């Protein structure tokens, strides 16, 4: 195996599922069983009503991620699972920052910094103000260090949500899934795309 396949990097696993109780646990334990730490996990509705979408971030080698994704996809209530590197997706995380209002009001510098980091005020109260920003981890992290000297009271960041760049969504696939004999389109086979590599190995 070449070096790349042994290199750990960030992967985002996208899982389309039925919306059933207990499925979160069923998926989560597949990672913990292999002692893989989930860096971030988000569940949300998808583009299709009734179909859920998990976005899971882990730091692993491509070998591990590929095997794991297949095991996830094997689960009865899972329709499809994909794994992608960071350059194959567009992703965001949302962060909230609570800071004392008087500091903001007094120091013009803070206002400028917030604006530079694309932060928006969500709530302004007499005693505190909550700002919101979204972006990649480094971006939301940067604002923490910027706000810390001004008395950051609370900080929280959401899980990653990601869109796969070259995905055309799930609508067409779902139609196929609902058929008794799904066609080749949905029963994707990663070998097919690199058939030559497979047979000369």
């Amino acid at each position, binding site marked *: 195996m070449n070096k790349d396949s042994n290199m750990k990097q960030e992967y985002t696993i996208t899982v389309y599922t039925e919306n059933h109780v207990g499925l979160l646990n069923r998926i989560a334990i597949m990672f913990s069983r292999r002692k893989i730490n989930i860096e971030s996990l988000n569940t949300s509705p998808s583009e299709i009503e009734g179909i859920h979408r998990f976005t899971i971030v882990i730091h692993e080698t491509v070998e591990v991620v590929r095997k794991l994704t297949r*095991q996830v996809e094997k689960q009865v209530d899972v329709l499809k699972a994909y794994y992608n590197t960071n350059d194959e997706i567009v992703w965001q995380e949302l962060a909230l920052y609570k800071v004392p209002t008087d500091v903001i009001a007094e120091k013009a510098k803070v206002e400028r910094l917030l604006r530079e980091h694309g932060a928006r005020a969500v709530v302004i109260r007499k005693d505190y103000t909550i700002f919101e920003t979204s972006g990649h981890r480094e971006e939301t992290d940067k604002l923490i260090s910027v706000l810390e000297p001004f008395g950051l009271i609370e900080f929280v960041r959401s899980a990653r949500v990601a869109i796969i760049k070259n995905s055309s969504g799930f609508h067409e696939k779902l139609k196929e899934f609902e058929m008794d004999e799904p066609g080749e389109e949905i029963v994707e086979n990663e070998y097919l795309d690199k058939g030559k590599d497979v*047979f000369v190995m």
Partner: protein
Amino acid sequence: MQTIEAKTTLDINKQEVENITGSEAVLKALLAEGVDTIFGYPGGAIMPIYDALYDYTDRLNHILVRHEQGGIHAAQGYARTSGRPGVVFATSGPGATNLVTGLADAMIDSTPVVCVTGQVFAHLLGTDAFQETDVINITTPVTKWNYQVTDASEIPGVLAKAFYIAKSGRPGPVLIDITKNAQIQQFEYKGYQPCNHIRSYRPRPLIRKAYIEEAARLINAAERPFVIFGQGVILGKAETEFKAFIEKGGIPAAWTILGLSALPTDHPLNVGMLGMHGNYGPNVLTNECDVLIAVGMRFDDRVTGRLDKYAKQAKVIHLDIDPAEIDKNVKATVPVWGDCKETLPMLTALLEQKVYPLWLNRFHDCTKKEIDTVIHAELNPTQEIMTMGEVIRELNEITGGDAVIVTDVGQHQMVACRYAKFNQSKSNVTSGGLGTMGFALPAAIGAKFGAKDRDVVAIIGDGGLQMTLQELGTVMQSKVDIKIIILNNRYLGMVRQWQQLFNDKRYSFVDIESPDFVALAKSYRIDGRCVSHRSALKSAMKEMMAHRGAYLLEIMVGKENNVFPMVPQGCGVGEIRLS
């Protein structure tokens, strides 16, 4: 789509809609699925189902086991000999947690089992009610699918799904947890519709012709092709297709422990068993073949030994129904995803009719070497104390290879699997993946119900029997005609063997005392006998097989005998030891 739905609703309305309880719906579902036998144990939270069962005993045979673990192992044995899902009833809390070992066993050995557990009333969930456990979460990693029912109207649909999931694709255990209120609740029963499609579940991957063609090309060009096959052949009911495949290709074939009996032992192309205690030839020649064709097997570590020394020279063709198995342990050159019942004939059609006399001779040479160094002495010992191997040899002579052999876990299991003769499929029942001691006695009970007209012989060690010996009570009460052979070496033999070979004979807690097994059996009104001399072996075995009803035969064997050949852990298959 809508019109179809509307029409179905109309049809249903035309039928007489009856009100039944959730419990009755469970039993109606079982009948609709063709279930004839249930293994179970009642308790508080499943009482409504047992109450309904009272009126169904003419149609459903319920076997009262002595422990829920016995119940699920029996269901596994039933599934393995009948090819149909085994069914288990258990109550909530401890009843359900006692199923966990069996679920894990069925999961790793792909055995179709449907468990129905009672659960506390829905309004009590999460209150630490009496006998409440979170069964769904406890069993999630050891079930193919599980589901909690809190409303009776869900029952027909959920059970239909349960049976479909348990038996389709790569089979496995399913658990349905039903709260007591749902069991009692009356609902409008609209009949039972079997399930044959779940949109998020694809039991059979799409077969790709290109891969089959490529696989055929590789096989046709091979000089030393080698087939290794597992339980997938049996689960896929593809024994005939498999035989046709190896016969046309002229390819030697070796079985995994769960593949045993998928091909008759005597078949000229059957070269024996793979794995840690498998035969010499199949292990060594795995590293000499040029094309390795794996059919319905998953390259377990007990089969492969050290992966970086496994079949590195070979092109690997892997036929499996479970896409997650491809490339999991051994990289496939050509993956053939699909049900081997379908893929094997497609592949066979493209094969050239061939024979490999020189290559096959290599296997025969290895067999000869193994006979000379291991097998002959094991089957025809000269020392006074008996060997496990000679017991199996005697058994073969009496049964002719027609019996179902159920084994527990340990030395006796390896010896039985190495030497037992099989004429027909579904004849070997053993705990392969999980290695569950205590499996054999209850599994043999189930195996007998799954194959009523066949002889069922359980071969168990003195340690394993003591793990589930309470099921002798089930044998007694349900008059289960099984033959129980205890191979007693007064040790936990396999662990002792490892301690001898790898821990300088530091025999740490392997010295196990046993009760008087014959007297124990007698207390359960089961006849039996103990044999410690070779002179009595044959007659005792004949007496056992001729006996009407259950029989227990304890056979005293060598205390410190070892099972060889052996691929020591951490070694490659080529480093197999003959002594």
